[in-house]
């Protein structure tokens, strides 16, 4: 072997062989793909696969998460203080103050009514606002059929009213004639008697709304609209909320114990007007939901 040959052999070893011995080089027939993004159909198919895999796993994951949550909550709940003990941390000086001083400070002997209308009255103002807004938003959502113009909606409502007039439900009407006076009387009793017995604005307002619903179901919305039209409905609802806001606005200006005039203490504090206001708002809300879902408008 000469020296050139080991240099040659080195070069051949470093360069590699041009034609590999037992592999064939093939030349690609089709041109290379220009982009590596999937085409829209493949994307669609891939999305559907992913959705199906997610939907397969979703029930199992939901059960596991729920079981874990229930286990954590149970572990917390068995470590809570015993049920009904008088020296639980929840029976602290606040509840003792409410029970001891509610008669003289708020004029209500029902401690819960005194608490929600006087001691924590701003919370109840928020509640009334929530009910008012709920009716407003449901009205906005359910106002009209899609694509139905105004006069078509009016014709549909008149047709429904005519149907109600032509085919009255005799049993419902007779029992409603018997029951509605007692229901309204009971609602007024519960509303006005919230201070000295269980009751108050929320329960009285709900019973009042129930009476209105019974009237509308038995005699038709048209007859109810004769003495409780849409304008009257909006007026009553807005008046209730505004009265409450006004009365509590006075508290903001004069301070928490500011309104202590003679007339007010003889009246029993501000509980009665606030009870009435809350009751009106709740009654209008309950009736409003029924009317909106049954008919599309008040």
């Amino acid at each position: 072997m000469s020296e050139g040959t080991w240099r040659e052999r080195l070069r051949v070893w470093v360069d590699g062989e041009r034609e590999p011995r037992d592999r064939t080089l093939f030349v690609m027939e089709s041109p290379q793909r220009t982009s590596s993004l999937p085409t829209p159909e493949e994307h669609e198919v891939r999305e559907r696969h992913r959705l199906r895999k997610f939907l397969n796993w979703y029930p199992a994951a939901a059960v596991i998460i729920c079981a874990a949550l229930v286990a954590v909550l149970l572990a917390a709940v068995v470590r809570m203080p015993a049920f009904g003990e008088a020296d639980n941390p929840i029976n602290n000086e606040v509840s003792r103050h409410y029970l001891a001083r509610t008669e003289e400070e708020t004029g209500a002997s029902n401690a819960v009514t005194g608490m929600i209308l006087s001691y924590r009255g701003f919370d109840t103002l928020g509640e009334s606002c929530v009910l008012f807004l709920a009716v407003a938003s449901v009205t906005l959502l359910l106002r009209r059929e899609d694509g139905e113009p105004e006069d078509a909606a009016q014709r549909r409502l008149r047709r429904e009213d005519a149907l109600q007039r032509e085919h009255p439900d005799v049993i419902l009407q007779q029992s409603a004639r018997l029951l509605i006076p007692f229901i309204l009387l009971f609602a007024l009793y519960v509303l006005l008697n919230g201070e000295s017995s269980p009751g108050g604005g929320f329960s009285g307002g709900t019973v009042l709304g129930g009476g209105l619903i019974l009237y509308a179901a038995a005699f038709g919305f048209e007859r109810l609209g004769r003495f409780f039209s849409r304008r009257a409905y909006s007026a009553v609802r807005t008046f209730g909320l505004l009265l409450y806001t006004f009365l509590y606005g006075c508290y903001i200006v004069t301070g928490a114990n500011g309104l202590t005039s003679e007339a007010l203490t003889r009246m029993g504090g501000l509980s009665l007007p606030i009870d009435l206001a809350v009751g009106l708002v709740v009654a209008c809300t309950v009736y409003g939901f029924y009317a909106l879902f049954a008919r599309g408008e008040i």
Partner: protein
Amino acid sequence: MLETLLENRFSVTAVLLFGIGFLNLLLQQNLLKKVVGFNIMDSAVFLLLASLGYIEGGAAPVVAEGTSPSLYINPIPSGLVLTGIVVSVSITAFSLALIQRIYRRYGTIELDQLRERARKEDD
């Protein structure tokens, strides 16, 4: 262990009801049944709150003249339940109104059919 469960039976029942309501909310295909599950969760929370205020041997908190406060139960959790009931009613009404709009728009309230029809509208 069983004794603590029986002692706090209201809270344990409330937690179990909450779990049932949550499972309904997640797993039901019909939108109305989801709303029912949500209401069950609400009722569980009310049960828990109302049971916290009970004192053994106490009367309802309608205070008679000049009696001591130790005769009555705690009035505060009842007020909290009142707030909760109002929130539950409002949310249920709003969800039902939304479901009615969905039905008017798509013609179905089953979740899988809803998904199909919504995807077909996108195409």
